[in-house]
Each structure stands twice: as structure tokens, then as C-alpha cells.
């Protein structure tokens, strides 16, 4: 039976944790989908407001994305700049 070194064990669990951290993207995807759906609805109701709606939608998407970006940065740190290994 092969021996698992402590460093390899930590790196393996870190990779698992990085994958789990990206579960946050599920919520971000749902949020962006809601924003886009509502924007499409509003544009269909009021086509002349399309420019303003697009701008507001982009800002809303950017703010929603923040949670996902933090999850991404955490998993990048776990994979490439691991503080424990």
C-alpha cells in the first residue's frame, strides 16, 4: 500500500475545497438569469428605453458577479498559492 505524504493530502483536499467553493456560481448564474429575464420583459414592454435598460442590466450583472468572483479568487488561491502547503 502506497504512502500518502502530508503535503499531497493537503493539496488533494485543497483541490476538493476549490471545487466546492465554485458552488457559489450556481447562485450567481441564477441571479444573472433573473436580471436578464426581467430586462427582456421590460424591453418588450417599452422598446424605446432599451439603452438605459442595457446599461442598468450591465451594472446589476457586475454587482451580482462579485460573489462569484470572490469564490473564484478563493479557489485560485487554494490551487496556485496555497498557504498551507
Amino acid at each position: 500500500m502506497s504512502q500518502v505524504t502530508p503535503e499531497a493530502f493537503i493539496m488533494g483536499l485543497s483541490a476538493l475545497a476549490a471545487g466546492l467553493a465554485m458552488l457559489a456560481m450556481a447562485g450567481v448564474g441564477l441571479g444573472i438569469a433573473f436580471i436578464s429575464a426581467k430586462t427582456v420583459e421590460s424591453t418588450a414592454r417599452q422598446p424605446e428605453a432599451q439603452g438605459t435598460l442595457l446599461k442598468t442590466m450591465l451594472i446589476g450583472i457586475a454587482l451580482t458577479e462579485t460573489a462569484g468572483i470572490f469564490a473564484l479568487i478563493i479557489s485560485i488561491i487554494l490551487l496556485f498559492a496555497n498557504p498551507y502547503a
Partner: protein
Amino acid sequence: MELGPRIIFTIGDVNITETVIFSLIISLLIILFAYLATRKMEVIPHGFQAYGELIVGTIYKMVADTMGKQNLRFAPYIGTLFLFLAFGSTLGILDLRPVTADLNCTVPLAAVSFVMIHYSSIRAQTLKGYIKHLGSPYAFMLPLNIMSEMMFPITLACRIFGNILAGVIVMSLLFTALESFSESLGTHIPFLLLVLPLPLNFFFDMFEAGLQAFIFVMLTMVFTSNGINVSEDHE
């Protein structure tokens, strides 16, 4: 896999990385373009001057639409920021490392935006009104408001950094995979790299880069005009 920017040379304890060199080159190119565009100004523009007027006109229109005509004095800063971020993020097309895929580049830019937002807010509503606004609606909300203000530059810097770095990682994974596929097909020439990565290149290096630069300046503009217009509501 090596993720950080390469260190070109070292002065004392200071590492001069790719990021520093590329940002200097981009800044010099923008300055050179501005000099060429304004060297011989004519009434009917052509050549560099026409492109310069197109860019400046578009940026002034965007600032006027978002912040209002009375805040046009912010347009030069917004335009410079947008041009630098847009060119700095699209470096991936040339197979160089994008400048904005480094926190050392995005955090200072976000800090400059942060200082500008709060300086203009204090100037518009005086220090007393500024503190009063931080303590609204109730005085015990002051720490929470300060914390949410402090989060703004961090999220602003992390947003563009995370997006561009994700693009860099995906592109380098794709290049490695295509190279080893063409190795396994029995040739040492990575011919699969020829056309296949183009759609992803377009998405990550052009669309995403432009969108993130736009969002960066858009959030700066929105928060600046929010900070200024608060005082107008109270009067």
C-alpha cells in the same frame, strides 16, 4: 503551472515584472497617439485627429449621459481609465500577459477611483454633511456604512482581476490541451492551434476585456455622481 507575471529584472528589492513594463508601454502609446492627434489641429479633421475626436466625443457623451452635463469635468479621468483598462486587458490577443491580470495593477487604479469619489463627495456636501450622510439613517449605522464604503474599491479591483485572470487560465489550459492533441496525432507542429482557439480568444480577450473596462468606469461614474447628488437632495 506558473501563474504570476514573469519578473524581467530586479532593482534592489523591487521586482520589475511584465505588468510594469506593459503598463508603461501602453501609457506611452496612448500619450503618443494623443500627441499625434493634437499636433496639427484643423477645422475639418482627418487622420489621427478624426479618430481622436471620435474617441473623445464618445467618452464625453457617455459621461454626460451617466453623470449629467454639470459633471463633465470628470470626463478626462474616466476616458483615460477606460482606454488604459481596455488596452491593458486585450493584450491577450498578442499572446502577452494582460496587465489587469495582476492585483498590483488593479488595486492602485481602484484606490485612485475611491479617493476621487470621496474627495468629490466631501467637496460637494462639506465634511459635516459627508459624515452626517455616513451616519444616516441612524447614527449606529456608521460602522456598517463605513464598511460598505470600504468594500467598494476591493470589489472593484477583484472584479476585473478575477475576470481577466480566469480568461488567462482558460486560454493557457486550452493551448496546452491543443498542443498535446496535435502531439498525439503524430506531428510536432501544433497545427490545431491555428483556427480552433479563435472564438474563445474573441470572447475572453476582446468581449470580456471591453465589458470589464466598461463596468469599471461605469461603477466609478455611478458612485461619484451618487456621492455628489446626495447634497443636492438635502438642499
